[in-house]
């Protein structure tokens, strides 16, 4: 039982990341009708916003420590971070400790700008082109973006730690009445799940309860009629692209303590997120979220040793098997609407 609960938590955690990426993907597809293969790269750029802030926080001046020596036997040069000398050792250390959550403040404007530039600069020109062209150009863009990141940050994963308060793990089992140490789960993964829930809820609330969101939903349902009412739907859709980019970006920022960022992490998530969107139903926001969590949980259960001993390798293929099954029985996906990608 404890193993099942552990994998359930794992699945919710994985599902959070899938759901956040798939949410943005399906938002872009639903509004702009573009299949955005660069969406994984946006997740990766978000993660590297955290790395960038870490580098900024790490900027330091050199002080010679005559009492120690370096590897060549010369006096050791110690680096003192500027933030610690500017803001005092305590506040500087606090800033460095909380740099991952603080990176969200950097990531939101950066991602909005990246999203805006991407949409206006490149993707806009592909709205009327076939989906295959859109896939090719956005995939190309993703490769360019990841090579740029590699050029500046190198190919090795870069460790980006959670605040020290969240670095350990929580005895989750005790809450449920299990023995101590039966279900240990990292604090940060629980934080990530809660964070994802808040973001998903926020996006839905924004679309559901604001006039802007109402217009966007109306535009998703019937773009032409909304346009005839004198509303500049294109501008709002551009903003939605920015919003989707920001969602992917903050998802990437908060994921960095779980997975040390590297330049190809976006591609690793992209394919899975597409499967999530297809299983959820192209253009359906609740579908994307539901499918994200469903596939995350299924993938975690499939990695259990008991299941792998019955069907070896099932953890690698379970998502695709489920996708095939769902597409055979419900070709529009779990919550897909009629008419999407069927014209």
């Amino acid at each position, binding site marked *: 039982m404890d193993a099942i609960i552990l994998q359930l938590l*794992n699945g919710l955690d994985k599902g959070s990341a899938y759901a956040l990426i798939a949410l943005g993907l399906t938002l872009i597809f639903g509004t702009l009708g573009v299949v955005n293969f660069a969406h994984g790269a946006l997740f990766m750029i978000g993660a590297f916003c955290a790395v960038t802030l870490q580098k900024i926080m790490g900027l330091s001046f050199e002080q010679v420590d005559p009492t120690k020596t370096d590897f060549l036997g010369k006096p050791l040069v110690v680096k003192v971070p500027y933030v610690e000398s500017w803001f005092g050792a305590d506040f500087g250390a606090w800033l460095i400790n909380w740099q991952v959550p603080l990176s969200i403040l950097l990531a939101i404007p950066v991602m909005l700008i990246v999203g805006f530039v991407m949409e206006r600069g490149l993707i806009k020109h592909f709205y009327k082109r076939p989906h295959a062209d859109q896939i090719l150009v956005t995939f190309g863009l993703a490769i360019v973006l990841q090579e740029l990141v590699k050029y500046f940050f190198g*190919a*090795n994963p870069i*460790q980006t730690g959670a605040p020290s308060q969240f670095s*350990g793990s929580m005895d989750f089992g005790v809450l449920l009445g299990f023995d101590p140490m039966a279900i240990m789960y990292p604090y940060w993964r629980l934080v990530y799940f809660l964070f994802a829930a808040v973001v998903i809820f926020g996006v839905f609330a924004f679309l559901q309860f604001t006039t802007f969101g109402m217009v966007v939903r109306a535009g998703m349902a019937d773009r032409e009629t909304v346009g005839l009412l004198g509303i500049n739907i294109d501008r709002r859709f551009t903003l939605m692209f920015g919003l989707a980019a920001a969602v992917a970006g903050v998802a990437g920022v908060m994921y960095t303590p*779980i997975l040390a960022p590297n330049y190809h992490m976006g591609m690793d998530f992209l394919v899975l997120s597409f499967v999530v969107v297809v299983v959820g139903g192209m253009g359906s926001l609740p579908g994307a979220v539901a499918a994200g969590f469903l596939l995350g949980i299924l993938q975690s259960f499939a*990695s259990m040793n008991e299941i792998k001993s019955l069907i070896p390798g099932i953890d690698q293929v379970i998502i695709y098997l489920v996708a095939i099954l769902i597409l055979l029985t419900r070709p529009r996906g779990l919550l897909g609407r009629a008419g999407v990608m069927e014209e």
Partner: protein
Amino acid sequence: MSKSNFTRRGLLKTGAVTGAGLALPTIFTSAASAFTNEPTGSTVKFGFNVPQTGPYAEEGLDELRAQELAVQHINGEGDGGMLSTFSSKALDGTGILGRKVEFVTGDTQTKSDAARAAAKSMIEKDGVVMINGGSSSGVAVAVQELCQSAGIIFMAGLTHSNDTTGKDRKANGFRHFFNAYMSAAALAPVLKNAYGTDRRAYHLTADYTWGWTQQESIQAATEAMGWETVNNVLTPLSAGDFSSYIAPVLNSGADILVLNHYGGDMVNSLTQAVQFGLRDAQANGKNFEIVVPLYSELMAAGAGDNIKGVYGSMNWNWQLTDEGTQAFVKSFGEKYGRPPSNSAHTCYVQTLLYADAVARAGSFNPCAVAEALEGFEFSGMGNGDVLYRAEDHQCFKDVLVMKGAESPTTEYDTLEIVETTPVDQVMYAPDHPMFGGAEASLGECNAGA
């Protein structure tokens, strides 16, 4: 009436004679060229095949730094590095057999097919006499086989799978780096001292040649001292999130987790294992421990604080205090502003060893070079006394057992040397079952051409 001397028969005769005349020098040259890419001018070319893109690009970059340094030292530039401490004095800093060394580089991308394509291009287009480098056993085995069939010497870079000099050994291939068996043999006594004989181990293993042989070796060595193996779970390469594999470990009855992972996979799996509280946990009344059989400096830097107190092994480390190491660290450190990694060291040493073997053999013929390397005993290269064993072309030398440092002062001393395991403890028979058994054979040396 004009009469032409051109007849069909005459033309054919003239053509045949001219053709034969033109072909003659080529016949002579091909007979004169006894082996592939025999150097003819005043220079000779090496091929450095390292990952320049992909997940091990940083390691590849460090290998290239060392290879460039080795070429400089062979050509008499710089301070000479390990040439001054190397026991063989066949190299005099004027190149090799009067020829200056040049080099070209290839990008393995840490993919076997890309690595073979890069090596093939360097052999056929650039005319290299030797290929060195790489940081994956999958790549090493593939390139070694290509060099064997092309008639080129392959001086392996970082490759740790038993198979490279085990079941996949080749007459034209040589490995200075240690292997999975040696890691296990060196680690086992240290683990026994640190954690006792009554332990239950759970293995997570990268699902490819290196992971399999590493796991097999460490399982055998730890079981021999009384440990029990609870489970071995194969994980896909570059899985990223290992949480599903790590979550069941704590309740499996195990009290040790062995991570048979390397590079980015190791950084992620170790970090996640620590996040899941394994380092703070108790199991079977003992502290839960993690072991990483193969370490590298770049991985240690990536894993940050999570590596503290975790045992592993290395082929060499810049913190060694022998003369050879000091000379190399000084050369490398002054040129690049950082200490060399153990993959840089093995590539540097391999390049010098090849050059030295050519000088001793008096020929670039790969079979003569191979003969000079086989059974060669040397010292002054940072690992004490070393033997290049003739039977399998594996170097035998001391192995370092490492531990994540508790309080590193710089980014370069995140690992500390716990013990230098003497070569006798890591020795094995050439026909050891883990190395292909009695069937494993080097085959015939191929000089190509």
